[in-house]
């Protein structure tokens, strides 16, 4: 892994700008997928509402840099913090629900945010905002930022899972009552992972919108984000750290290949995801593990 990271660090010097862009997208999707996997793969919280944090992260960067002139690099961690704070606020009502209710409720939260932002004059209603200060960022700078975000995401998720909280989470997944008897504060552990996930998503989204320069409420809070993240994790391998890595690579390749026919690409992804659910519930990482026993990060659930 360290070798991989070192090699990727030198990429902008010898590859075209387009490849830098592809890798940037790969890093960002990887971070987003790891954050979702923390919730869905390890904590038993299947969330269809990660786009709330994506939109919030993006808008934080937009508002801070355009209206207050904060340099973009400072905006990114703040975006994560804002997303985390929203996660804290929304966890109150959301954690009362389980399973399917939690999933759809988290989706409704993001739809509500979408409507609120599209009616808010401060952020430009439905036409959105242009993050003009981001014009000055070069692709190379963003590439390195993306690399850092992706590496940080993997390290953070590993860190959470090897800690007491992580073990508590996985115990709670197996059997909540038994874990409770064993002394695990299930709610606190879940809240912790929820907040970490929100933070990671916010930072990655901030960088993503710094690249895209243009943010609009319907897309920023759109379900398409969750669809892509879920596909990454399902196809790559849920409940494992390598899964999102593989899945993100596949997504970026598919998007690149099908860029002229995006619907066909999404169609293929949907079919693959359904097939995976039927035939390979552990995803590609699971298949690799079963066939070869190869495991880059031996932290997995199930």
């Amino acid at each position: 892994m360290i070798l991989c990271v070192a090699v990727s660090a030198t990429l902008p010097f010898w590859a075209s700008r387009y490849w830098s862009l592809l890798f940037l997208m790969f890093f960002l999707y990887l971070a987003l997928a790891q954050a979702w996997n923390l919730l869905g793969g390890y904590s038993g919280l299947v969330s269809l509402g990660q786009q709330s944090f994506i939109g919030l992260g993006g808008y934080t960067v937009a508002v801070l840099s355009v209206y207050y002139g904060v340099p973009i690099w400072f905006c990114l961690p703040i975006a994560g913090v804002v997303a985390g704070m929203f996660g804290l606020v929304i966890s109150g009502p959301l954690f009362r629900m389980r399973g399917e209710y939690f999933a759809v409720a988290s989706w409704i939260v993001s739809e509500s945010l979408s409507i609120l932002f599209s009616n808010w004059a401060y952020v430009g209603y439905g036409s959105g905002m242009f993050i003009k200060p981001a014009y000055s960022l070069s692709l190379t700078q963003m590439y390195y930022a993306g690399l850092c975000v992706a590496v940080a995401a993997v390290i953070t998720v590993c860190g959470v899972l090897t800690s007491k909280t992580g073990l508590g989470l996985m115990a709670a997944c197996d059997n909540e009552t038994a874990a409770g008897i064993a002394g695990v504060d299930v709610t606190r552990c879940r809240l912790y992972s929820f907040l970490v996930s929100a933070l990671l998503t916010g930072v990655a989204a901030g960088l993503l919108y710094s690249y895209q320069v243009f943010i609009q409420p319907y897309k920023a809070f759109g379900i398409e984000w969750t669809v892509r993240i879920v596909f990454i994790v399902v196809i790559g391998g849920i409940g494992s750290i390598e899964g999102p890595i593989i899945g993100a690579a596949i997504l970026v390749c598919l998007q690149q290949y099908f860029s002229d026919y995006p619907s066909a690409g999404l169609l293929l992804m949907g079919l693959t995801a359904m097939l995976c659910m039927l035939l390979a519930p552990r995803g590609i990482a699971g298949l690799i593990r079963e066939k070869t026993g190869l495991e880059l990060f031996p932290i997995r659930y199930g």
Partner: protein
Amino acid sequence: MPELFQSVVNGVLLGGLYASIAIGLSIVFGVMRLVNLAHGDLLILAGYAGLLLATCFGISPLAGLVVIVPLLFIAGFGLQKHLFNRTMRQGPEPPLLTALGLSIVIQNTLLVLFTPDARFLSTDLSVQTVRITDSVVVSAVYLLGFLSGLGIIILLHAFLRGTALGIAIRASSDDEQTARLMGIDTYETYAYAAGIAAATAGVAGIVMGMTFTFYPSSGPQYLIIAFGVVVIGGMGSMLGTLTGGILLGLAQLVGGNLLGPGYQLLCGYAVLFAVLIMRPQGIFGGKVHD
């Protein structure tokens, strides 16, 4: 306040349409504890099927129901039997994600086949109105939606109580193990329930297509409406679905009237969220069936 009264009337009628959209989700959720995330897309699929019949064969959408309802029944049956029944054994979340995958597949197939242009099933009813009082005018398609919702609910109520299959479905949802002990093939009944749900989605889809413009990507918004109705009214209860639909329709239109047009949907979501937090089993929920 005649305008408010107009909103109330429209809200109630729209609620009937919402109820007809939600009944399918309610059945699947009540019987199998499965939120079919592709339900909204089945609706849209029906709409496009109606469009196809109208443009290629000149059949009016309402007449086309004769073809669409059986087709969707078969589709729902097949999907449940071969796809969802298998993933349901893995736990509660895989079916959810499989449904998400199905939803995306349907949406993008429609996108590829029909392009993202706006579609509408225009019939003579589209601009007709029924006048109730001087200031309250009711559009014919809204009335049709309400009546179709009412009709579906009454029919299903009778079916679930009266026929052997209906009783088998209720038994499987009440207590699966006992039902199996009694000789009911629960997975087969699940497939029938899903087929019925898809058939109702077919009817609701045609009515929806006659009332509103639709796109391949319109599915999720109807899914959220259906989910809202099911939550507010209570899962598995027919009367609850009707009540939930009416309440949601009222919340949307009256709220939109009071707060402003951009907040129409938000009012509906707020009510839904409030019910989720305070009384998650819904108004008539708590029991599995009537």
